[in-house]
């Protein structure tokens, strides 16, 4: 470059137009990658982001531990006689609540990507359209797994003893991850729909708080007023918490699991297409 003569050491190296030209000569294009391959590549991106910004794991480690300690010792004595008795009941519930709560960060990540400008590049690529969205969810699945394992370990330290053993715990967590994957499409929709990160956050809070608290996560719904029981007993979170609780206790709550899977399917069928419609039309 003629302009880059009196350069100091911190100057950018010059662009080599010769080697650039040599690179551009190659016109052949590889075959279009499969849907699975692009989804996994986007999942890899999510993992790279965790690697570069490990602080974002705070919400899947410290937050769930805090929840667990807080609710176990706050309510334990009053509700179940002692914290160690209560934790047998509440740990699967808090596991469900915490993981479902952190799903809302998916919407925030989608929104940040739109804001930062990387999103339209992905949208302009000739790839299977939902793979970018699935990539977020694959990365998030890793975060949910970390959160679940952390809580389970802390729970074991505090005296939680799952009767279902290792197998029961794994089955419970697997069901939780499956439900969270389907549930997250609500947040991808909001992430695409709302203008700012803040509004995504506040709308998510408005949905997630009533939904997780108005359930059987903390207490048996029998003491609630009838109208609230009607809501709580039919909430997907209640079905999920009962399923996870049952699986971890070594039971097979078939009905609850069927309800949970039904809800997951319904959420995916409704919010998946809405998300993709917004993604394509944005």
């Amino acid at each position, binding site marked *: *470059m003629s*302009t*880059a003569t009196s350069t100091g050491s911190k100057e*950018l*190296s*010059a*662009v*080599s*137009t010769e*080697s*650039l*030209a*040599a*690179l*551009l*000569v*190659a*016109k052949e*294009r*590889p*075959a*279009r*990658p499969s849907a699975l*391959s*692009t989804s996994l*590549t*986007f999942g*890899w*991106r999510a993992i*790279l*982001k965790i690697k*570069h*910004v490990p602080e974002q794991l705070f919400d899947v480690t410290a937050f769930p531990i805090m929840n667990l300690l807080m609710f176990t010792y706050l309510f334990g004595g009053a509700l179940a006689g002692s914290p160690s008795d209560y934790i047998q009941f509440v740990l699967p519930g808090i596991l469900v609540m915490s993981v479902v709560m952190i799903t809302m960060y998916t919407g925030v990540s989608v929104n940040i*990507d739109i804001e*930062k*400008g*990387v*999103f*339209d*590049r*992905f*949208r*302009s*690529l*000739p*790839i299977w359209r939902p793979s970018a969205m699935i990539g977020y969810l694959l990365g998030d699945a890793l975060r949910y797994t970390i959160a679940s394992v952390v809580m389970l370990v802390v729970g074991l330290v505090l005296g939680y003893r799952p009767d279902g053993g290792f197998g029961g715990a794994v089955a419970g967590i697997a069901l939780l991850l499956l439900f969270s994957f389907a549930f997250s499409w609500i947040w991808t929709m909001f992430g695409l729909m709302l203008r700012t990160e803040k509004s995504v956050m506040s709308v998510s809070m408005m949905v997630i708080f009533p939904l997780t608290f108005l359930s059987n996560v903390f207490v048996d719904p029998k003491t609630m007023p009838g109208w609230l029981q009607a809501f709580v007993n039919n909430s997907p979170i209640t079905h999920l918490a009962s399923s996870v609780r049952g699986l971890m206790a070594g039971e097979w709550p078939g009905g609850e699991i069927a309800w949970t899977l039904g809800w997951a399917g319904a959420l995916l069928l409704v919010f998946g297409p809405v998300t993709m419609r917004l993604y394509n*039309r*944005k």
Partner: protein
Amino acid sequence: MSTHTSGLAIETAGLVKTFGETRAVDGVDLAVPAGTVYGVLGPNGAGKTTTVKMLATLLRPDGGQAHVFGHDVVREADEVRSRVSLTGQYASVDEDLTGTENLVLLGRLLGHGKTAARQRGEQLLEAFGLTDAAAKQVKHYSGGMRRRIDIAASILNTPDLLFLDEPTTGLDPRSRNQVWDIVRAVVAQGTTVLLTTQYLDEADQLASRIAVIDKGRVIAEGTKGELKASVGAGSVHLRLRNADQRPEAERLLRDLLTAEVQLEPDPVALTARLAAAASDTAADHAAKALGELARAGITVDSFSLGQPSLDEVFLALTGHDTGQATGDATGTGPDTDTKDEVAA
């Protein structure tokens, strides 16, 4: 390459996009020949980015038609996507990832294997002078480096058509020149480039044809020469030794060149704008005028003959200036073609 025969990379007819009440793009017709740099010039909010987004399949047009290499941007969006690449402030790379990771990510998404994606990424980083920054997160890059990695990400597969949406906005003059070199290298290999810019000298430097766009409409289209000829043949700029002689010089020039003469703020300077009809003989006329001035005893200290700037073109076409702060860099000197400095 494409299978169609018209030789046009982009063809639009009556393209419209509305946002609520605003008609951001209001009936745009474009015909972009393949293998050239085509400039779309206009101020902020003219509808340039909206047009590009429709052509790159990111926005659905509300009316009209657009074809890229003969493929409809709505019905054959995937065909279009496999031929085009896009660089703009909104189509960037992931700030949290490193330069290498970004290129490998996009390489994988374009179907390269792990090794091939990494190799191509490294070669591009090297060609763009970014090898030292390859392992740094993009958020720590300077503006110039940022634009390079954006463009590198757009040519992982050599595209048939590259959209560069305001590629030098916010860059310092040196980085800007380097981006221009990249654009020239890309187009030299047969890629068509659609360049949007609000900088008149940028379109002048790079584009072979230019569409001037204002308020969502194309208000002029043609080669640089045609656009400039539409506002006159250029201008003669003079500096006299003696300010007292300026009124007489002004009268002489007006008579000799049948030109509009403008007195500059500098009391010894004046500019004569030549009429369009005189474009072939502008130099002869100017020489003759110099002779006459000498005969009348008027001493000329300096003299230059220049083509009209695109700034003047824009002003003449729209009746308002571009509204950009770049006006003084491109507008004051009549000899833009010989200028080296660029707008900040």
